[in-house]
């Protein structure tokens, strides 16, 4: 019980487990019972067990710029993050709505461009955007689906309302950690998971395979997973997904294009490939069409794609819709394409191309977070509150040079969740990345997702590349 009594919440943040008065929320009541009966020693041994589990399974990721070595365990906190089924239903429908609109937007941008002609989104924002691929103009993609696999980052404000922080529509990663986190928590809390009716997620690889398969007209299409290789930070995830789906994991050099068809080199000769779940960026996909120096991709694959001989997942050019500058227009897209109100709102975002908004941002930089519109993984960010004067001045110069490349958002208050740190419970900021799959039979969102945690005290940065960790996410139906 001491564990809970000594828990001190962050001020002005929504805590997932306790309300402002420190009373345990209903969905955490049973977990509280468990905590009150267990000892710190026991929790620590559970933590060790989890760590050993990840080591044994080889669940590691690579951090760039790290002198100490390349492979690390993804820090994992054993206390699950719990979300009620009713809250989940809102998230689920919000994500479905959002992805439907984003997909329609991408289709429109690469075809008729109604949304630009109707002046809903300024055309220069698209034309000048590095994620806009002219090569995709007027290409008919199978089933008109561009965003097959997406990860939508959500946060909760001080009232507990969910907001969308970011859409990840290119090659969102983290799903294998979501699966492994559940593998370990079901071992750590064997009684609680069935009792609380935690929604299962282990079917994700089957669902993913079936969604991929649904894109082809063939009865038994050949699906492969394309990885940049062993040194990619998400390599573990690539191998895990390929293994769980029973598909081949290939690198660019394992594939070739002949007469506009893609083939895989196998011990038994060349084998036609129908669907490629690629985990490499657009730029590196095809040296003949994009970066000529890329050795990760396959020469001529875009021509094969154009002819409809191979299906690429996600579609090249989908990144245009998860750009941070485009993000501000998603609510407009939802109303434009679907004539609906957004179920999940955006965070207030300032566009630096707008003079008034830019002036406001430069004056109030200490209260804001600035981001590059094409950045990801927490790189290229400036946290106004904690940055030095020198850093701010440098950043201001960058903004003056290319204002269209930056956006600003108020310093966010993420929600917090209790974490076991040095023998006691401490609040740490969390976000939530649910994963959605879009196939010819519609969109499905895997119940839960990856809850990422900022493990440093007071930190808001949850990215794994910046020292973040993760927790299991329980959607409880009880």
């Amino acid at each position, binding site marked *: 019980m001491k564990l809970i009594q000594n828990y001190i919440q962050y001020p002005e943040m929504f805590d997932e487990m306790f309300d402002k008065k420190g009373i345990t929320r209903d969905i955490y009541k049973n977990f509280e019972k468990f905590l009150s009966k267990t000892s710190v020693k026991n929790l620590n041994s559970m933590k060790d067990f989890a760590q050993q589990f990840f080591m044994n399974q080889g669940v590691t990721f690579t951090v760039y710029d790290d002198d100490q070595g390349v492979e690390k365990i993804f820090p994992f906190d054993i206390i699950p993050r719990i979300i009620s089924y009713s809250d989940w239903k809102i998230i689920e429908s919000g994500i479905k709505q959002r992805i439907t609109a984003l997909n329609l937007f991408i289709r429109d941008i690469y075809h008729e461009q109604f949304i630009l002609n109707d002046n809903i989104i300024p055309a220069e924002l698209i034309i000048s955007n590095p994620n806009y691929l002219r090569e995709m103009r007027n290409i008919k993609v199978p089933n008109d689906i561009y965003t097959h696999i997406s990860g939508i980052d959500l946060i909760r404000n001080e009232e507990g309302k969910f907001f969308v922080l970011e859409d990840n529509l290119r090659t969102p990663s983290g799903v294998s950690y979501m699966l492994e986190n559940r593998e370990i928590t*079901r*071992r750590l809390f064997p009684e609680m*998971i069935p009792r609380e*009716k935690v929604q299962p997620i282990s079917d994700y690889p089957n669902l993913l*395979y079936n969604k991929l398969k649904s894109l082809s007209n063939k009865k038994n299409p050949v*699906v492969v997973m394309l990885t940049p290789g062993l040194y990619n930070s998400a390599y573990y995830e690539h191998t895990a997904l390929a293994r769980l*789906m*029973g598909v081949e994991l290939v690198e660019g050099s394992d594939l070739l294009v002949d007469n506009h068809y893609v083939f895989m080199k196998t011990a038994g000769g060349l084998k036609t490939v129908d669907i490629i779940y690629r985990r490499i960026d657009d730029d590196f996909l095809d040296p003949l069409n994009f970066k000529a120096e890329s050795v990760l991709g396959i020469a001529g694959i875009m021509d094969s794609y154009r002819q409809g001989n191979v299906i690429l997942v996600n579609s090249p050019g989908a990144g245009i819709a998860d750009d941070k500058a485009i993000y501000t227009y998603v609510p407009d897209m939802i109303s434009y394409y679907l004539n609906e109100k957004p179920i999940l709102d955006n965070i207030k975002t300032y566009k630096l191309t707008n003079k008034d908004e830019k002036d406001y941002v430069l004056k109030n930089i200490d209260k804001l977070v600035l981001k590059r519109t094409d950045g990801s993984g927490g790189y290229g960010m400036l946290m106004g509150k904690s940055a030095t004067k020198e850093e701010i001045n440098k950043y201001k110069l960058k903004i003056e040079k290319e204002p269209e490349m930056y956006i600003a958002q108020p310093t966010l208050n993420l929600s917090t969740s209790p974490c076991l740190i040095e023998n006691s419970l401490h609040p740490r900021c969390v976000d939530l990345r649910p994963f959605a799959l879009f196939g010819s039979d519609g969109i499905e969102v895997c119940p839960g997702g990856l809850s990422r945690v900022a493990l440093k005290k007071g930190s808001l940065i949850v990215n794994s590349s910046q020292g973040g960790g993760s927790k299991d996410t329980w959607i409880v139906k009880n």
Partner: protein
Amino acid sequence: MDRYMERSYGLLNLIKTNYNSTLDTGDYQSWNGILKSYMGIDKSISNENYQDSISVIEYMIFNNSNPNTLINMITKARENARSVQEHISREIWVAINKYFLKITDKKFYKYYKKNDPIDFINELTQFHHIYYSVADISQERGNAFCFMNLGKYFERILQSIDFLNVKIDILESNENNLNESYFWKNLLISIGGYQLYIKTYKSIFNVENIIEMITINQFFPRSIKFSVDKLYSHITRLNEFNKPESNSLKFLTGKMKNELTYSSISSIKQDGLKNFVYKIQFDLNKISNEINNIYFYQNN
């Protein structure tokens, strides 16, 4: 010896898989089916919660009075090994003896009480993996090795038949069940065939593919076809070593092997799965009797 080792390995895998599936579904009643088919306990015990899972596992591993528990099977395997020490390699004997000493150690029982069952079962399965590899690298390829393998593959076929017999009815009626893929996944994991299944048939679970894999897939080391092929090659070698008067054993096994080679899922369906399984059992009985006649029956 090998039959006991193979059977206990199957039991451990089944326990692990079922425990795993109860963590997702909370279906503690599922233990009853296993208690019935593996422990011969017919009366229905009400398994309702996690603690019941722990007690059931404890029973299946440590109970002394039921001959089908792990501890008793390992004890018997060790007795067998002791009585044929001059035929088996020293390393095999040590591997089994160590396993026996570990599982009968009181400290190990206490360790079970404290630890995660999956970790515990993984530790036990390691003894089997050591046993299999030690047998592979240290046992001379003579009569003893062939007899060991006959025991192993007989047991495997019987386990596959059990699997087909017990589950087919449920499978057919549950084909469109919501938890279908869970169910299949766990079933396949319990016989070590999940990885091969998704590679071969991808993530689409259907009764036909699963039956095909368990009966006639030549690459699946637990399929009936694979095991019969192995029986045939060991019986052929025994024939070469011992030159028995009658060729009937090799003839019976060769016939069974060829029947399986020229079976397909459609021919199995045409004959009916029950008939197919019955025929396998019938042929296996004949082979077993013939082994006894030729190698163990003392003609005075």
